[in-house]
């Protein structure tokens, strides 16, 4: 799948943003006044910035509001509702803390749940697709939510909890990659089932329908740099897990914590790039790729 920068930034930024909002909703840390303002501003900026970045991917962003209509069947529509709900509830929760100094815990819990739900709906957009065997797997919901929680802990400065969570995330990520490889290799969709000609013999794409590319080959038959996947996986784990853990184990300093967050974010971005670049859509079979 084509790793569109707007979508990668959306999923990485909004994951971090909603992760932070989740932590703030749960009261980790319990903030007030200006500190609360800054924390919530960062959370909203990341989550909202991610959502805005996602609209760059749309052909007709001016019609984006229509995407609230089909929540009965569409995960993308459910994502819109969950995101709007999370922002609204967290907005009220944040305003009450900042301006009146009262923390309505129940509102925070609902906001936290909606924030995580938003990340879950994002991941379900990918997981529901039978056409992409690597995505049609348990790992996107588990990983997207884990990355959001870990990113949130880092952003919220929950150092002692963040370290074991980071290590667990690293292990989970590696296991997910291995299991995704297995899932993709075991896919029962082949050029033989795609053409129905398998009973005659070995099917091979002879000629494409046209000499140039098309929307499908650009969007779904992305091949570039798949050969660097293993290297990128190592880089992504080093950036997202190893470096942050090392920095957090040093005596605490705000600059080190900031570096840990930056490194973690770069690792998540690399992971998301791979998430798309590695994913193979079954339509690429028709194009002999």
């Amino acid at each position: 799948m084509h790793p569109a920068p707007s979508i990668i930034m959306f999923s990485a930024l909004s994951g971090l943003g909603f992760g932070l909002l989740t932590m703030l909703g749960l009261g980790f840390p319990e903030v007030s006044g200006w500190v609360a303002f800054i924390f919530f501003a960062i959370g909203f900026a990341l989550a909202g910035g991610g959502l805005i970045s996602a609209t760059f991917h749309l052909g007709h962003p001016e019609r984006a509001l229509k995407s609230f209509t089909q929540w009965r069947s569409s995960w993308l529509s459910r994502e819109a509702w969950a995101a709007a709900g999370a922002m609204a509830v967290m907005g009220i929760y944040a305003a009450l803390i900042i301006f009146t100094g009262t923390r309505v815990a129940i509102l925070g819990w609902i906001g936290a749940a909606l924030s995580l739900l938003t990340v879950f709906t994002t991941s379900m957009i990918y997981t529901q697709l039978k056409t992409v065997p690597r995505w049609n797997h348990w790992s996107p919901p588990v990983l997207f939510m884990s990355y959001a929680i870990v990113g949130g802990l880092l952003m919220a400065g929950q150092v002692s909890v963040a370290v074991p969570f980071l290590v667990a995330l690293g292990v989970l990520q590696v296991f997910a990659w291995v299991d995704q490889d297995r899932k993709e290799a075991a896919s029962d969709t082949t050029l033989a089932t795609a053409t129905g000609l398998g009973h005659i013999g070995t099917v091979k794409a002879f000629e494409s329908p046209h000499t140039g590319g098309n929307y499908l080959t650009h969007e779904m038959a992305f091949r570039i740099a798949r050969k660097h996947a293993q290297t990128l996986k190592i880089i992504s784990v080093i950036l997202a897990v190893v470096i942050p853990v090392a920095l957090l184990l040093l005596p605490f300093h705000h600059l080190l914590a900031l570096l840990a967050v930056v490194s973690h974010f770069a690792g998540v971005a690399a992971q998301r790039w791979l998430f798309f670049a590695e994913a193979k859509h079954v339509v690429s079979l028709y194009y002999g790729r």
Partner: protein
Amino acid sequence: MTLLPTHTEKTLGLVIDLDTCVGCHACVTACKGWNTENYGAPLADVDAYGAEPVGSFLNRIHSYEVQPETGGPAQLFHFPKSCLHCADAPCVTVCPTGASYKRVEDGIVLVNESDCIGCGLCAWACPYGARELDPSEKVMKKCTLCVDRIYNENLPEEDRQPACVRTCPAGARHFGDLSDPESDVSKLVAERGGFDLMPEQGTAPVNKYLPPRPKDEVPEFDILAPYLEPVAEEPQGFLGWLDKTLERIG
């Protein structure tokens, strides 16, 4: 509404004969022509005469080479592919705006272009590559089964079928109601063993493909052979002497 109908009154679709298709691409041209001039946004071509031309098409013809396991020469098949108007269309349910829908009256899967936000998720959900985002209009384009031809009473009756079917010079494309067991297309599917593409994807496609008929096998038999002198395996006479002598020397 992107929930799929539980039942459609008719199940209109195509039957494509892989035994007959000659790969001329006439259906591609007819489709592009009709659907550029009629219903919905025109099918754009971008950089048509430049280095990287790209355009939206609703129908494309692939070609596959199949090497029989039993040996012998490879066989070549031309393979037209357009929307299969699936009964369980995954492209419809993923649509966040309701722009994609499946019609209850005839089962045609359509896009309401004024509701399409161009997110591309339906194209991701389709295993067949039947949907393409138009490079100019930025809305999702797909086969409409020429919904503006098949019911169009301004057209002569023989033209009230999809442009691809009407134009096919080989008769490789057939159009009809696949829910009616008495329709020509249903009979054709029953008679020739029509099959689904990627049945394991669970999309329950309406369009069916007819498999290539087995190739004729010409027996190694010559009607005149019994009347002919057998050709000597070993050279005789002078040539025989020469052969033996040369073998002795060399």
